[in-house]
Protein backbone atom coordinates (compact mmCIF):
# COMPACT_ATOMS: atom_id res chain seq x y z
CA UNK A 1 0.00 0.00 0.00
CA UNK A 2 1.59 3.29 -1.01
CA UNK A 3 1.61 6.04 1.60
CA UNK A 4 1.33 9.74 0.88
CA UNK A 5 4.63 11.49 1.42
CA UNK A 6 6.52 14.62 0.43
CA UNK A 7 9.78 14.40 -1.54
CA UNK A 8 11.92 15.87 1.23
CA UNK A 9 10.31 13.53 3.75
CA UNK A 10 11.03 10.58 1.46
CA UNK A 11 14.68 11.64 1.33
CA UNK A 12 14.81 11.77 5.13
CA UNK A 13 13.03 8.42 5.37
CA UNK A 14 15.39 6.87 2.84
CA UNK A 15 18.42 8.16 4.73
CA UNK A 16 17.13 6.87 8.07
CA UNK A 17 16.42 3.45 6.61
CA UNK A 18 19.82 3.46 4.93
CA UNK A 19 21.30 3.79 8.41
CA UNK A 20 22.36 7.43 8.55
CA UNK A 21 23.61 8.20 12.05
CA UNK A 22 24.95 11.73 11.68
CA UNK A 23 23.37 14.83 10.19
CA UNK A 24 24.96 18.28 10.15
CA UNK A 25 23.26 21.14 8.37
CA UNK A 26 22.12 24.72 8.18
CA UNK A 27 18.45 25.30 7.36
CA UNK A 28 17.51 26.68 3.96
CA UNK A 29 14.33 26.68 1.89
CA UNK A 30 13.33 24.46 0.14
CA UNK A 31 15.33 21.76 1.92
CA UNK A 32 14.56 22.47 5.60
CA UNK A 33 12.09 19.61 6.02
CA UNK A 34 15.01 17.20 5.75
CA UNK A 35 16.73 18.89 8.72
CA UNK A 36 13.53 19.01 10.74
CA UNK A 37 12.84 15.32 10.27
CA UNK A 38 16.45 14.40 11.05
CA UNK A 39 16.35 16.48 14.24
CA UNK A 40 13.18 14.70 15.31
CA UNK A 41 14.10 11.17 14.33
CA UNK A 42 17.87 10.75 14.72
CA UNK A 43 18.11 10.89 18.53
CA UNK A 44 15.59 8.05 18.82
CA UNK A 45 17.89 5.94 16.64
CA UNK A 46 20.95 6.84 18.69
CA UNK A 47 22.11 9.31 16.04
CA UNK A 48 23.42 12.85 16.21
CA UNK A 49 21.74 15.93 14.71
CA UNK A 50 23.98 18.97 14.68
CA UNK A 51 22.82 22.36 13.53
CA UNK A 52 25.99 24.00 12.34
CA UNK A 53 26.92 27.69 12.11
CA UNK A 54 26.99 27.61 8.31
CA UNK A 55 27.26 25.32 5.31
CA UNK A 56 31.06 25.31 5.24
CA UNK A 57 30.92 23.83 8.72
CA UNK A 58 28.11 21.42 7.78
CA UNK A 59 30.12 19.96 4.93
CA UNK A 60 33.25 19.75 7.09
CA UNK A 61 31.34 18.05 9.88
CA UNK A 62 29.86 15.31 7.69
CA UNK A 63 33.36 14.57 6.38
CA UNK A 64 34.71 14.30 9.93
CA UNK A 65 31.80 12.10 10.98
CA UNK A 66 32.26 9.78 8.02
CA UNK A 67 35.94 9.34 8.83
CA UNK A 68 34.84 8.45 12.36
CA UNK A 69 32.71 5.68 10.84
CA UNK A 70 29.24 7.24 10.55
CA UNK A 71 26.95 7.32 7.54
CA UNK A 72 26.62 11.07 7.28
CA UNK A 73 24.27 13.46 5.54
CA UNK A 74 23.62 17.15 4.97
CA UNK A 75 20.89 18.95 3.03
CA UNK A 76 20.90 22.41 1.52
CA UNK A 77 19.88 24.52 -1.46
CA UNK A 78 21.72 26.73 -3.98
CA UNK A 79 23.33 29.37 -1.73
CA UNK A 80 24.38 26.74 0.79
CA UNK A 81 25.57 24.40 -1.95
CA UNK A 82 27.88 27.17 -3.17
CA UNK A 83 29.33 27.49 0.34
CA UNK A 84 29.96 23.75 0.46
CA UNK A 85 32.05 23.59 -2.67
CA UNK A 86 35.49 23.99 -1.07
CA UNK A 87 34.91 21.21 1.42
CA UNK A 88 33.18 19.07 -1.20
CA UNK A 89 36.52 19.23 -2.98
CA UNK A 90 38.15 18.08 0.26
CA UNK A 91 35.82 15.05 0.32
CA UNK A 92 36.80 14.27 -3.28
CA UNK A 93 40.52 14.60 -2.55
CA UNK A 94 40.48 12.64 0.69
CA UNK A 95 38.00 10.11 -0.81
CA UNK A 96 35.44 10.43 1.98
CA UNK A 97 32.00 8.87 1.50
CA UNK A 98 29.12 11.21 2.39
CA UNK A 99 25.77 12.32 0.98
CA UNK A 100 24.73 15.89 0.20
CA UNK A 101 21.18 16.81 -0.73
CA UNK A 102 20.91 19.96 -2.83
CA UNK A 103 17.26 20.87 -3.37
CA UNK A 104 17.53 23.12 -6.39
CA UNK A 105 15.82 26.49 -6.24
CA UNK A 106 15.78 29.35 -8.69
CA UNK A 107 18.89 31.57 -8.72
CA UNK A 108 21.17 33.33 -9.11
CA UNK A 109 22.12 34.29 -5.57
CA UNK A 110 19.14 34.37 -3.20
CA UNK A 111 17.01 34.40 -6.33
CA UNK A 112 13.49 33.06 -5.96
CA UNK A 113 13.95 31.22 -2.71
CA UNK A 114 10.77 29.16 -2.84
CA UNK A 115 10.65 28.51 -6.57
CA UNK A 116 12.14 25.59 -8.47
CA UNK A 117 15.21 25.69 -10.66
CA UNK A 118 17.63 23.33 -12.32
CA UNK A 119 20.52 25.75 -12.40
CA UNK A 120 23.03 23.78 -10.33
CA UNK A 121 23.83 21.10 -12.89
CA UNK A 122 27.20 22.52 -13.84
CA UNK A 123 27.93 23.72 -10.31
CA UNK A 124 27.58 20.13 -9.15
CA UNK A 125 30.10 19.01 -11.73
CA UNK A 126 32.50 21.93 -11.93
CA UNK A 127 31.85 24.03 -8.83
CA UNK A 128 35.13 23.12 -7.18
CA UNK A 129 38.61 24.11 -8.22
CA UNK A 130 40.60 21.35 -9.81
CA UNK A 131 38.75 18.66 -11.73
CA UNK A 132 37.18 17.10 -8.60
CA UNK A 133 34.69 14.64 -10.12
CA UNK A 134 31.71 13.53 -8.06
CA UNK A 135 28.51 11.53 -8.44
CA UNK A 136 25.24 13.46 -8.78
CA UNK A 137 21.81 11.83 -8.82
CA UNK A 138 18.54 13.45 -9.82
CA UNK A 139 15.19 12.06 -8.63
CA UNK A 140 11.95 12.81 -10.47
CA UNK A 141 9.33 11.46 -8.07
CA UNK A 142 8.77 10.93 -4.37
CA UNK A 143 9.50 7.22 -4.79
CA UNK A 144 12.67 8.16 -6.58
CA UNK A 145 13.64 10.51 -3.73
CA UNK A 146 13.53 7.55 -1.36
CA UNK A 147 15.18 5.03 -3.67
CA UNK A 148 17.93 7.33 -4.86
CA UNK A 149 18.79 8.42 -1.31
CA UNK A 150 19.34 4.79 -0.36
CA UNK A 151 21.40 4.36 -3.51
CA UNK A 152 23.41 7.52 -2.77
CA UNK A 153 24.73 5.99 0.45
CA UNK A 154 25.65 2.78 -1.35
CA UNK A 155 27.48 4.61 -4.14
CA UNK A 156 29.27 6.89 -1.66
CA UNK A 157 30.82 3.93 0.16
CA UNK A 158 31.42 1.85 -2.94
CA UNK A 159 33.30 4.60 -4.73
CA UNK A 160 34.62 6.43 -1.65
CA UNK A 161 33.35 9.78 -2.77
CA UNK A 162 30.72 12.40 -1.99
CA UNK A 163 27.35 11.82 -3.68
CA UNK A 164 25.02 14.74 -4.35
CA UNK A 165 21.28 14.19 -4.64
CA UNK A 166 19.74 17.00 -6.70
CA UNK A 167 15.95 17.13 -6.61
CA UNK A 168 14.38 20.36 -7.84
CA UNK A 169 11.98 22.19 -5.53
CA UNK A 170 8.93 20.71 -7.29
CA UNK A 171 10.00 17.13 -6.65
CA UNK A 172 11.14 17.94 -3.10
CA UNK A 173 7.82 19.54 -2.18
CA UNK A 174 5.59 17.24 -4.16
CA UNK A 175 3.38 14.87 -2.19
CA UNK A 176 2.51 11.60 -3.84
CA UNK A 177 2.44 7.87 -3.21
CA UNK A 178 5.50 6.11 -1.89
CA UNK A 179 5.85 2.35 -1.65
CA UNK A 180 8.09 1.73 1.34
CA UNK A 181 10.14 -1.44 0.94
CA UNK A 182 10.21 -3.84 3.91
CA UNK A 183 13.95 -3.60 4.06
CA UNK A 184 16.56 -1.62 2.18
CA UNK A 185 20.05 -2.65 1.15
CA UNK A 186 22.43 -0.68 3.29
CA UNK A 187 25.74 0.67 2.19
CA UNK A 188 28.79 -1.24 3.33
CA UNK A 189 32.18 0.29 3.81
CA UNK A 190 35.02 -1.79 2.46
CA UNK A 191 37.25 -1.85 5.53
CA UNK A 192 40.89 -2.91 5.56
CA UNK A 193 41.74 -6.53 6.25
CA UNK A 194 45.54 -6.19 6.37
CA UNK A 195 47.38 -5.68 9.63
CA UNK A 196 47.18 -2.16 11.05
CA UNK A 197 50.91 -1.67 10.48
CA UNK A 198 50.49 -2.36 6.76
CA UNK A 199 47.42 -0.19 6.21
CA UNK A 200 47.69 2.59 3.66
CA UNK A 201 44.45 4.52 3.26
CA UNK A 202 45.00 5.34 -0.41
CA UNK A 203 46.65 2.20 -1.72
CA UNK A 204 44.75 0.16 -4.30
CA UNK A 205 45.46 -1.36 -7.70
CA UNK A 206 44.68 1.08 -10.58
CA UNK A 207 40.95 1.66 -10.99
CA UNK A 208 40.07 0.08 -7.67
CA UNK A 209 38.82 1.74 -4.53
CA UNK A 210 41.10 1.61 -1.50
CA UNK A 211 39.51 0.26 1.71
CA UNK A 212 38.70 2.91 4.30
CA UNK A 213 39.19 2.43 8.03
CA UNK A 214 37.57 4.64 10.65
CA UNK A 215 39.09 6.74 13.38
CA UNK A 216 39.19 4.85 16.64
CA UNK A 217 39.78 1.45 15.02
CA UNK A 218 43.26 -0.13 15.35
CA UNK A 219 44.03 1.32 11.90
CA UNK A 220 45.72 4.67 12.50
CA UNK A 221 45.55 6.81 9.38
CA UNK A 222 46.04 10.24 7.84
CA UNK A 223 43.84 12.03 5.37
CA UNK A 224 44.62 15.38 3.83
CA UNK A 225 43.20 17.91 1.42
CA UNK A 226 46.74 18.38 0.12
CA UNK A 227 48.15 16.21 -2.64
CA UNK A 228 49.22 12.90 -1.10
CA UNK A 229 50.50 9.42 -1.83
CA UNK A 230 49.14 6.02 -0.76
CA UNK A 231 50.13 6.62 2.86
CA UNK A 232 47.85 9.64 3.16
CA UNK A 233 50.78 11.92 3.98
CA UNK A 234 51.19 15.00 1.83
CA UNK A 235 53.52 14.79 -1.13
CA UNK A 236 53.76 17.18 -4.04
CA UNK A 237 55.91 15.72 -6.82
CA UNK A 238 54.33 15.66 -10.32
CA UNK A 239 54.16 11.86 -10.49
CA UNK A 240 52.19 11.64 -7.23
CA UNK A 241 49.84 14.39 -8.40
CA UNK A 242 49.36 12.82 -11.82
CA UNK A 243 48.50 9.44 -10.34
CA UNK A 244 46.12 10.84 -7.74
CA UNK A 245 44.21 13.06 -10.13
CA UNK A 246 43.88 10.28 -12.69
CA UNK A 247 42.69 7.91 -10.00
CA UNK A 248 39.98 10.34 -8.83
CA UNK A 249 38.79 10.73 -12.40
CA UNK A 250 39.04 7.14 -13.52
CA UNK A 251 37.46 5.55 -10.47
CA UNK A 252 34.18 7.17 -11.55
CA UNK A 253 34.49 7.52 -15.31
CA UNK A 254 35.80 4.04 -16.00
CA UNK A 255 32.89 2.61 -14.06
CA UNK A 256 30.15 4.84 -15.37
CA UNK A 257 28.10 1.74 -16.30
CA UNK A 258 27.90 0.78 -12.61
CA UNK A 259 26.97 4.28 -11.55
CA UNK A 260 24.87 6.03 -14.14
CA UNK A 261 21.22 5.20 -14.46
CA UNK A 262 19.42 6.40 -17.58
CA UNK A 263 15.75 5.65 -18.17
CA UNK A 264 14.30 5.52 -21.62
CA UNK A 265 10.57 5.75 -22.35
CA UNK A 266 9.32 5.51 -25.92
CA UNK A 267 9.57 3.75 -29.28
CA UNK A 268 12.60 1.64 -30.24
CA UNK A 269 13.95 4.12 -32.71
CA UNK A 270 12.71 7.58 -31.75
CA UNK A 271 12.78 10.31 -34.37
CA UNK A 272 12.61 12.91 -31.63
CA UNK A 273 14.43 12.34 -28.39
CA UNK A 274 13.72 14.52 -25.38
CA UNK A 275 16.55 14.39 -22.83
CA UNK A 276 15.45 15.63 -19.42
CA UNK A 277 15.84 15.17 -15.68
CA UNK A 278 13.91 15.84 -12.49
CA UNK A 279 10.41 17.22 -12.75
CA UNK A 280 11.12 18.26 -16.33
CA UNK A 281 11.51 14.59 -17.30
CA UNK A 282 7.95 14.02 -16.11
CA UNK A 283 6.69 16.97 -18.10
CA UNK A 284 8.50 15.50 -21.11
CA UNK A 285 6.85 12.13 -20.66
CA UNK A 286 3.44 13.76 -20.53
CA UNK A 287 4.33 15.79 -23.63
CA UNK A 288 5.19 12.78 -25.82
CA UNK A 289 2.30 10.61 -24.64
CA UNK A 290 0.70 9.02 -27.69
CA UNK A 291 3.44 10.27 -30.01
CA UNK A 292 4.77 7.19 -31.81
CA UNK A 293 7.86 8.97 -33.00
CA UNK A 294 9.07 10.62 -29.79
CA UNK A 295 10.81 9.21 -26.72
CA UNK A 296 12.12 10.56 -23.44
CA UNK A 297 15.49 9.80 -22.00
CA UNK A 298 15.58 10.62 -18.31
CA UNK A 299 18.93 11.28 -16.68
CA UNK A 300 18.43 9.78 -13.24
CA UNK A 301 22.19 10.22 -12.80
CA UNK A 302 23.58 13.57 -13.88
CA UNK A 303 27.26 12.89 -13.21
CA UNK A 304 29.11 10.99 -14.44
CA UNK A 305 27.18 11.03 -17.72
CA UNK A 306 26.55 7.71 -19.42
CA UNK A 307 27.74 9.02 -22.78
CA UNK A 308 27.77 5.71 -24.62
CA UNK A 309 24.15 4.98 -23.75
CA UNK A 310 23.07 8.52 -24.59
CA UNK A 311 24.68 8.33 -28.02
CA UNK A 312 23.11 4.93 -28.59
CA UNK A 313 19.54 5.99 -27.77
CA UNK A 314 19.95 9.20 -29.76
CA UNK A 315 21.31 7.29 -32.75
CA UNK A 316 18.02 7.19 -34.67
CA UNK A 317 16.94 10.72 -33.76
CA UNK A 318 16.48 13.54 -36.24
CA UNK A 319 16.15 15.95 -33.33
CA UNK A 320 17.23 15.97 -29.72
CA UNK A 321 15.39 18.38 -27.45
CA UNK A 322 16.71 19.29 -24.02
CA UNK A 323 14.20 21.11 -21.81
CA UNK A 324 15.67 22.37 -18.54
CA UNK A 325 14.89 25.00 -15.90
CA UNK A 326 17.98 27.07 -16.67
CA UNK A 327 19.34 28.99 -19.62
CA UNK A 328 21.23 26.01 -21.02
CA UNK A 329 23.46 23.63 -19.09
CA UNK A 330 22.92 19.97 -19.93
CA UNK A 331 22.13 20.92 -23.52
CA UNK A 332 25.82 21.68 -24.06
CA UNK A 333 26.77 18.18 -22.98
CA UNK A 334 24.18 16.76 -25.39
CA UNK A 335 25.61 18.82 -28.24
CA UNK A 336 29.02 17.38 -27.43
CA UNK A 337 27.71 13.81 -27.40
CA UNK A 338 25.16 13.93 -30.24
CA UNK A 339 26.76 15.15 -33.48
CA UNK A 340 24.59 13.69 -36.22
CA UNK A 341 21.43 15.80 -35.71
CA UNK A 342 20.38 19.15 -34.25
CA UNK A 343 20.20 19.44 -30.47
CA UNK A 344 17.75 22.12 -29.39
CA UNK A 345 17.39 23.55 -25.92
CA UNK A 346 14.12 24.59 -24.34
CA UNK A 347 14.93 26.82 -21.43
CA UNK A 348 13.04 28.54 -18.71
CA UNK A 349 14.60 30.43 -15.80
CA UNK A 350 11.67 32.31 -14.32
CA UNK A 351 11.01 30.08 -11.33
CA UNK A 352 8.23 28.19 -13.12
CA UNK A 353 8.41 24.54 -14.12
CA UNK A 354 8.32 23.72 -17.82
CA UNK A 355 4.83 22.60 -18.86
CA UNK A 356 4.22 19.50 -21.01
CA UNK A 357 2.51 21.71 -23.58
CA UNK A 358 5.67 23.80 -24.02
CA UNK A 359 7.64 20.68 -24.81
CA UNK A 360 4.94 19.34 -27.14
CA UNK A 361 4.89 22.69 -28.94
CA UNK A 362 8.68 22.70 -29.28
CA UNK A 363 8.47 19.29 -30.92
CA UNK A 364 5.69 20.44 -33.25
CA UNK A 365 7.49 23.70 -34.08
CA UNK A 366 10.69 21.96 -35.01
CA UNK A 367 8.68 20.92 -38.08
CA UNK A 368 10.92 19.63 -40.84
CA UNK A 369 13.67 18.50 -38.49
CA UNK A 370 11.36 16.48 -36.34
CA UNK A 371 9.11 14.96 -39.00
Amino acid at each position, binding site marked *: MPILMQGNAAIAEGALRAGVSFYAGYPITPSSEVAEIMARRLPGQ*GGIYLQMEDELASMAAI*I*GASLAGARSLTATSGPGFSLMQENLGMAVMAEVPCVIVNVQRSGPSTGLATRPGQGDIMQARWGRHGDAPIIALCPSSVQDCFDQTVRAFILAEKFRCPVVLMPDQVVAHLSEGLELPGEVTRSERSRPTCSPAEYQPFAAPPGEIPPLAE*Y*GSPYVFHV*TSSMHDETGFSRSDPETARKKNLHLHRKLHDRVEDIAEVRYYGPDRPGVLVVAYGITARAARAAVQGDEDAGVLELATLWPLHERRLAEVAGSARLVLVPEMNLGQMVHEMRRIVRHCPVHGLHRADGEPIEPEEIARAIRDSGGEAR
Partner: protein
Amino acid sequence: MRDFRDYLALDRLPHMWCAGCGHGIVLGALARAFSDLDLDPSQIVVVTGIGCWGKADDYLRTNALHGTHGRALAFATGVKGARPSLQVVALMGDGDGVTIGGNHLIHAARRNLSITGLMVNNYNYGMTGGQYSATTPYGGLTTTSREGCPEEAFDTCALVAAAGAALVARTSAYQPAQLRALLRQALTTPGFSFVEVASTCPTYFGRFNQAPGPAEQLKDVAASVGSPGIVAKRQVDDFHARYWRIHGKGDEHER
Protein backbone atom coordinates in the same frame (compact mmCIF):
# COMPACT_ATOMS: atom_id res chain seq x y z
CA MET B 1 54.21 4.34 29.34
CA ARG B 2 54.63 5.79 25.88
CA ASP B 3 57.47 8.11 25.04
CA PHE B 4 56.72 11.42 23.29
CA ARG B 5 58.60 10.09 20.26
CA ASP B 6 55.92 7.42 19.89
CA TYR B 7 53.54 10.16 18.73
CA LEU B 8 55.95 11.68 16.23
CA ALA B 9 56.53 10.60 12.62
CA LEU B 10 60.28 10.80 13.04
CA ASP B 11 60.81 9.35 9.57
CA ARG B 12 59.18 12.48 8.13
CA LEU B 13 61.85 14.76 9.56
CA PRO B 14 63.37 17.21 8.84
CA HIS B 15 60.24 19.32 9.11
CA MET B 16 59.38 22.13 6.69
CA TRP B 17 59.45 24.98 9.20
CA CYS B 18 62.04 27.76 8.97
CA ALA B 19 65.01 27.67 11.31
CA GLY B 20 63.98 29.36 14.55
CA CYS B 21 60.22 29.00 13.96
CA GLY B 22 58.23 28.46 17.16
CA HIS B 23 55.99 25.72 15.70
CA GLY B 24 58.39 22.87 16.52
CA ILE B 25 58.43 23.81 20.21
CA VAL B 26 54.64 23.66 20.35
CA LEU B 27 54.53 20.32 18.56
CA GLY B 28 57.08 18.93 21.05
CA ALA B 29 54.96 20.11 23.97
CA LEU B 30 51.84 18.51 22.45
CA ALA B 31 53.58 15.14 21.93
CA ARG B 32 54.84 15.31 25.52
CA ALA B 33 51.36 16.07 26.84
CA PHE B 34 50.05 13.02 24.91
CA SER B 35 52.74 10.85 26.49
CA ASP B 36 52.14 12.29 29.97
CA LEU B 37 48.55 11.06 29.66
CA ASP B 38 49.71 7.86 27.93
CA LEU B 39 47.05 8.35 25.25
CA ASP B 40 46.60 5.58 22.70
CA PRO B 41 47.55 7.06 19.27
CA SER B 42 44.73 5.13 17.61
CA GLN B 43 42.24 7.01 19.79
CA ILE B 44 43.65 10.46 19.01
CA VAL B 45 42.51 12.45 15.98
CA VAL B 46 44.55 15.56 15.23
CA VAL B 47 42.65 17.91 12.94
CA THR B 48 44.64 20.67 11.31
CA GLY B 49 43.90 23.73 9.24
CA ILE B 50 46.04 25.18 6.49
CA GLY B 51 49.12 27.21 7.31
CA CYS B 52 52.66 26.54 8.49
CA TRP B 53 51.29 25.32 11.83
CA GLY B 54 48.65 23.37 9.94
CA LYS B 55 51.45 21.17 8.57
CA ALA B 56 52.00 19.78 12.08
CA ASP B 57 50.01 16.62 11.36
CA ASP B 58 52.65 15.63 8.81
CA TYR B 59 54.93 14.90 11.76
CA LEU B 60 52.47 12.97 13.91
CA ARG B 61 51.76 9.25 14.19
CA THR B 62 48.21 9.69 15.43
CA ASN B 63 45.11 9.73 13.24
CA ALA B 64 45.00 12.98 11.32
CA LEU B 65 42.63 15.06 9.24
CA HIS B 66 44.26 17.94 7.38
CA GLY B 67 41.22 19.86 6.20
CA THR B 68 40.73 23.29 4.67
CA HIS B 69 41.86 26.74 5.81
CA GLY B 70 39.93 27.89 8.85
CA ARG B 71 37.68 24.86 9.19
CA ALA B 72 39.64 22.60 11.55
CA LEU B 73 37.05 22.95 14.32
CA ALA B 74 34.20 22.19 11.95
CA PHE B 75 35.86 18.94 10.83
CA ALA B 76 36.68 18.19 14.47
CA THR B 77 33.02 18.72 15.41
CA GLY B 78 32.04 15.99 12.97
CA VAL B 79 34.67 13.56 14.21
CA LYS B 80 33.87 14.11 17.87
CA GLY B 81 30.14 14.36 17.25
CA ALA B 82 30.05 10.96 15.60
CA ARG B 83 32.47 9.23 17.94
CA PRO B 84 32.68 10.91 21.36
CA SER B 85 35.16 8.40 22.77
CA LEU B 86 37.93 9.86 20.56
CA GLN B 87 40.42 12.41 21.84
CA VAL B 88 40.09 15.21 19.30
CA VAL B 89 42.60 18.04 19.01
CA ALA B 90 42.36 20.90 16.49
CA LEU B 91 45.61 22.67 15.59
CA MET B 92 45.15 26.14 14.17
CA GLY B 93 47.23 29.20 13.35
CA ASP B 94 45.89 32.65 14.16
CA GLY B 95 44.83 33.01 10.53
CA ASP B 96 43.10 29.67 10.64
CA GLY B 97 41.73 29.80 14.14
CA VAL B 98 40.36 33.27 14.70
CA THR B 99 40.48 35.06 11.36
CA ILE B 100 38.94 32.97 8.57
CA GLY B 101 37.77 30.44 11.16
CA GLY B 102 36.49 32.84 13.81
CA ASN B 103 32.89 31.80 13.38
CA HIS B 104 33.68 28.13 13.98
CA LEU B 105 35.78 29.07 17.01
CA ILE B 106 33.00 30.88 18.87
CA HIS B 107 30.48 28.21 17.99
CA ALA B 108 32.79 25.40 19.10
CA ALA B 109 33.17 27.24 22.41
CA ARG B 110 29.42 27.70 22.73
CA ARG B 111 28.57 24.15 21.69
CA ASN B 112 31.13 22.60 24.04
CA LEU B 113 31.91 19.31 22.40
CA SER B 114 34.94 17.95 24.24
CA ILE B 115 37.52 19.12 21.72
CA THR B 116 40.84 20.81 22.45
CA GLY B 117 41.71 23.78 20.25
CA LEU B 118 45.41 24.66 20.16
CA MET B 119 45.99 27.95 18.41
CA VAL B 120 49.52 29.09 17.69
CA ASN B 121 49.50 32.85 17.37
CA ASN B 122 52.49 34.21 15.48
CA TYR B 123 50.64 37.46 14.74
CA ASN B 124 50.60 36.96 10.98
CA TYR B 125 50.01 34.57 8.08
CA GLY B 126 53.34 32.78 7.90
CA MET B 127 52.57 30.41 5.08
CA THR B 128 51.40 32.99 2.56
CA GLY B 129 54.28 35.38 3.19
CA GLY B 130 53.62 37.39 6.32
CA GLN B 131 50.38 39.32 5.76
CA TYR B 132 48.36 40.70 8.69
CA SER B 133 45.75 38.61 10.48
CA ALA B 134 43.09 39.33 13.09
CA THR B 135 45.76 39.05 15.82
CA THR B 136 48.28 41.44 14.27
CA PRO B 137 48.51 44.36 16.71
CA TYR B 138 47.56 47.88 15.67
CA GLY B 139 50.56 49.33 13.90
CA GLY B 140 52.15 45.91 13.28
CA LEU B 141 54.34 45.71 10.20
CA THR B 142 53.44 42.97 7.74
CA THR B 143 53.67 42.48 3.99
CA THR B 144 50.16 43.93 3.62
CA SER B 145 50.63 46.65 6.23
CA ARG B 146 54.01 48.11 5.39
CA GLU B 147 53.20 51.29 7.27
CA GLY B 148 51.46 49.56 10.15
CA CYS B 149 48.30 47.50 10.56
CA PRO B 150 45.27 49.81 10.68
CA GLU B 151 43.06 47.28 12.48
CA GLU B 152 42.83 46.25 16.12
CA ALA B 153 43.69 42.68 17.18
CA PHE B 154 41.35 40.19 18.78
CA ASP B 155 41.88 39.16 22.38
CA THR B 156 41.17 35.60 21.34
CA CYS B 157 41.09 34.11 24.82
CA ALA B 158 38.54 36.69 25.99
CA LEU B 159 36.46 35.94 22.91
CA VAL B 160 36.49 32.18 23.47
CA ALA B 161 35.79 32.57 27.18
CA ALA B 162 32.83 34.86 26.45
CA ALA B 163 31.48 32.32 23.99
CA GLY B 164 31.27 29.74 26.77
CA ALA B 165 34.32 27.45 26.56
CA ALA B 166 35.03 25.16 29.50
CA LEU B 167 38.73 26.01 29.72
CA VAL B 168 40.71 28.87 28.21
CA ALA B 169 44.46 29.25 28.70
CA ARG B 170 47.30 31.22 27.24
CA THR B 171 51.05 30.92 27.29
CA SER B 172 53.97 31.25 24.90
CA ALA B 173 56.43 29.05 23.09
CA TYR B 174 59.05 30.45 25.49
CA GLN B 175 57.41 28.39 28.27
CA PRO B 176 57.15 24.85 26.87
CA ALA B 177 56.89 23.21 30.29
CA GLN B 178 53.90 25.34 31.20
CA LEU B 179 52.43 24.72 27.77
CA ARG B 180 52.73 20.99 28.28
CA ALA B 181 50.98 21.21 31.66
CA LEU B 182 48.19 23.38 30.25
CA LEU B 183 47.70 20.95 27.37
CA ARG B 184 47.42 18.05 29.82
CA GLN B 185 44.71 19.93 31.62
CA ALA B 186 42.94 20.89 28.38
CA LEU B 187 43.01 17.32 27.07
CA THR B 188 41.27 16.07 30.20
CA THR B 189 38.66 18.83 30.53
CA PRO B 190 35.07 18.00 29.52
CA GLY B 191 33.71 20.56 27.08
CA PHE B 192 35.63 22.79 24.70
CA SER B 193 39.14 23.67 25.84
CA PHE B 194 41.29 26.28 24.17
CA VAL B 195 44.98 27.03 24.50
CA GLU B 196 46.53 30.02 22.76
CA VAL B 197 50.30 29.93 22.35
CA ALA B 198 52.05 33.17 21.47
CA SER B 199 54.86 32.19 19.17
CA THR B 200 57.40 33.41 16.68
CA CYS B 201 57.62 33.72 12.94
CA PRO B 202 61.20 34.86 12.59
CA THR B 203 60.95 34.91 8.80
CA TYR B 204 58.19 37.53 8.71
CA PHE B 205 56.51 39.06 11.76
CA GLY B 206 59.56 38.66 13.96
CA ARG B 207 61.91 40.14 11.39
CA PHE B 208 59.67 43.16 10.83
CA ASN B 209 58.59 43.86 14.40
CA GLN B 210 60.66 42.14 17.05
CA ALA B 211 64.17 41.87 18.43
CA PRO B 212 66.80 40.48 16.04
CA GLY B 213 67.11 36.68 16.18
CA PRO B 214 64.61 33.92 16.99
CA ALA B 215 65.75 33.41 20.59
CA GLU B 216 65.26 37.08 21.46
CA GLN B 217 61.92 37.03 19.65
CA LEU B 218 60.73 34.20 21.89
CA LYS B 219 61.35 36.47 24.88
CA ASP B 220 59.42 39.24 23.12
CA VAL B 221 56.35 37.09 22.60
CA ALA B 222 56.54 35.78 26.17
CA ALA B 223 56.52 39.36 27.41
CA SER B 224 53.52 40.19 25.22
CA VAL B 225 51.43 37.48 26.88
CA GLY B 226 51.46 39.22 30.24
CA SER B 227 50.47 36.66 32.86
CA PRO B 228 50.36 33.21 31.27
CA GLY B 229 48.14 30.41 32.58
CA ILE B 230 44.41 29.75 32.88
CA VAL B 231 42.30 32.64 31.63
CA ALA B 232 38.86 31.19 32.26
CA LYS B 233 37.37 28.00 33.56
CA ARG B 234 33.77 26.87 33.81
CA GLN B 235 32.12 23.68 34.89
CA VAL B 236 30.15 22.56 31.84
CA ASP B 237 28.35 19.47 30.68
CA ASP B 238 29.73 18.68 27.29
CA PHE B 239 27.56 18.56 24.18
CA HIS B 240 26.86 14.85 24.28
CA ALA B 241 25.79 14.91 27.93
CA ARG B 242 23.35 17.73 27.22
CA TYR B 243 22.15 16.16 23.97
CA TRP B 244 21.27 12.84 25.53
CA ARG B 245 19.75 14.45 28.61
CA ILE B 246 17.44 16.53 26.40
CA HIS B 247 16.52 13.45 24.42
CA GLY B 248 15.77 11.50 27.58
CA LYS B 249 18.59 9.00 27.22
CA GLY B 250 21.02 10.42 29.75
CA ASP B 251 22.23 7.14 31.18
CA GLU B 252 22.32 4.96 28.12
CA HIS B 253 24.74 7.21 26.35
CA GLU B 254 27.10 8.05 29.20
CA ARG B 255 30.53 7.50 27.65
